[in-house]
């Protein structure tokens, strides 16, 4: 009988390697599962994930751009550059409360690091966002603008920051919802409120001075502004990037504390 590597790995370094390999495999397989199961029954597949933010961009363009006449040039592009990264966050957070609940039988029976369920969900939404970047590029080119070389550094930096921020909030919501089931409704509200508190349909510079500090208290605001600056003007400021990572640190800290405190009880309450 072939002896498996886990039980044979007495040497701590080898055991560590197997542990990380397994964790990585878990994330990859679960992310693939999410992708596959989402597209298995839909003919349009990928188109949906791009069409959704585009549709909202059109609606906001008509309401805020044409009817209320927001004084921002290239408003359609401005909206898209903010909405695409926003949808990654919004989709993940609205689904977050259900992530552990949807895997109840597994959590009750099998011991595995449960947070990988959240990691792979957020990654899956992130991949959809990455796939929508060419669409933004296309619209830039249509408007006679072009992507900048700064994207090469800026996109990875912001991708990591957004992943950490979204993961931090999502793991908090997913864990707490097992104990307080009405969090599900609350988080749908939270996403809507956050949408209007985040400079997506407007620029933070437009806010009156007394509200601006409120905007800066929002952990998501620097992120969306940074994405938009990068997409539209090919610029990123280290100050904003720093702010993104600071809020990533904050949400991760909260998320980790909540998760480590509550995860030993998951199997009991689910």
């Amino acid at each position, binding site marked *: *009988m*072939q*002896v*498996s*590597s*886990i*039980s044979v790995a007495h040497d701590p370094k080898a055991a560590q390697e*197997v542990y990380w*390999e*397994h964790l990585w*495999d*878990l994330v*990859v*397989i*679960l992310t693939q*599962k999410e992708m*596959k*199961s989402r597209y*298995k*029954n839909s003919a349009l597949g990928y188109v949906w994930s791009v069409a959704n933010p585009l549709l909202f961009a059109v609606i906001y363009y008509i309401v805020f751009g044409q009817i209320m006449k927001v004084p921002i040039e290239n408003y359609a592009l401005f909206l898209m550059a903010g909405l695409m990264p926003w949808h990654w966050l919004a989709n993940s957070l609205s689904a977050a409360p259900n992530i552990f609940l949807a895997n109840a*039988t*597994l*959590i*009750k*029976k*099998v*011991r*595995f690091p449960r947070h990988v369920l959240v990691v792979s969900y957020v990654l899956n939404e992130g991949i959809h966002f990455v796939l929508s970047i060419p669409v933004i590029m296309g619209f830039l080119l249509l408007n006679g603008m072009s992507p900048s070389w700064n994207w090469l550094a800026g996109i990875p930096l912001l991708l990591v920051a957004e992943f950490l921020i979204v993961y931090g909030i999502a793991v908090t919501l997913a864990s707490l919802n097992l*104990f*307080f*089931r*009405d*969090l599900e409704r*609350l988080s749908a509200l939270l996403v809507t409120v956050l949408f209007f508190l985040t400079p997506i349909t407007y620029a933070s510079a437009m806010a009156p001075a007394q509200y601006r500090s409120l905007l800066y208290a929002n952990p998501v605001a620097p992120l969306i502004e940074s994405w938009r600056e990068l997409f539209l003007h090919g610029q990123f400021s280290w100050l904003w990037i720093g702010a993104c990572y600071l809020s990533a640190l904050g949400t991760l800290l909260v998320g980790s504390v909540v998760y480590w405190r509550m995860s*030993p*009880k998951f*199997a*009991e*309450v689910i």
Partner: protein
Amino acid sequence: MTAICFEHVSKWYPRYQSLSYGIKSSLLHLPQTLRSLKRERIRVLEDVSFQITKGEIVGLIGPNGAGKSTTLALMAGVVEAEAGQVMVGSRVSPLLELGAGFHFDLTGAENILLHGVLLGLTRREVVSKMKAIIAFSELEGAIDQPLRTYSSGMIARLGFSIACHLEPEILLIDEILSVGDLAFQLKCNAKIDEFKRQQVTMVLVSHSMPHVQRLCDRVIWLEKGRIIAEGNPAEILKEYDKATQLRHAVDRSSAA
């Protein structure tokens, strides 16, 4: 060598229901909520001690709510004991109930990969065993079809086949051996005998007494979270049967 050791293990669950009334009422009545969490605890296991040696097959029997599944959950490491110590040797793999942990939109082969990795193997290990798993399950023809097209017997075969190829050192079996057609059941029994020869420790929860009698070396009888008796299957099962009949008779006469 001891594979599993429980020392004065107690497990109780708070009544989390008081929390699921919602955030609003838990916060408005915070003191009451906290007090109820402390006071209203349900004891599931109380001062349970036993040892299981490597290679032994132990059956857990008892009426519903006796704490059998909680005992398995403690062994699997998905819940923690409030008091006492649980020591579990090495690689534990639970045999999941029908379809748990499977994804119905994925194909059989994709599910093998997903399931194997969830149960603790690396991707490389699962891939190297893929052929053997498919062959054992006898599902070669359907393995690239989505799981939702499978019958429940086919799903059970897939699940058992994966569990068998995880090379577990401790196998936890919760009431699922009576699945599949007769031919597959015989195959399962043969596999279990093979495990037995390979010194795999098995803990089995079952309400099927013939099953317990045939497979187990020892039986632990749990009731209301305590061990009532443990020992030789034939003797314990006889006692258990007598107690159940008696209770049934008492229930009937008090109902009349």
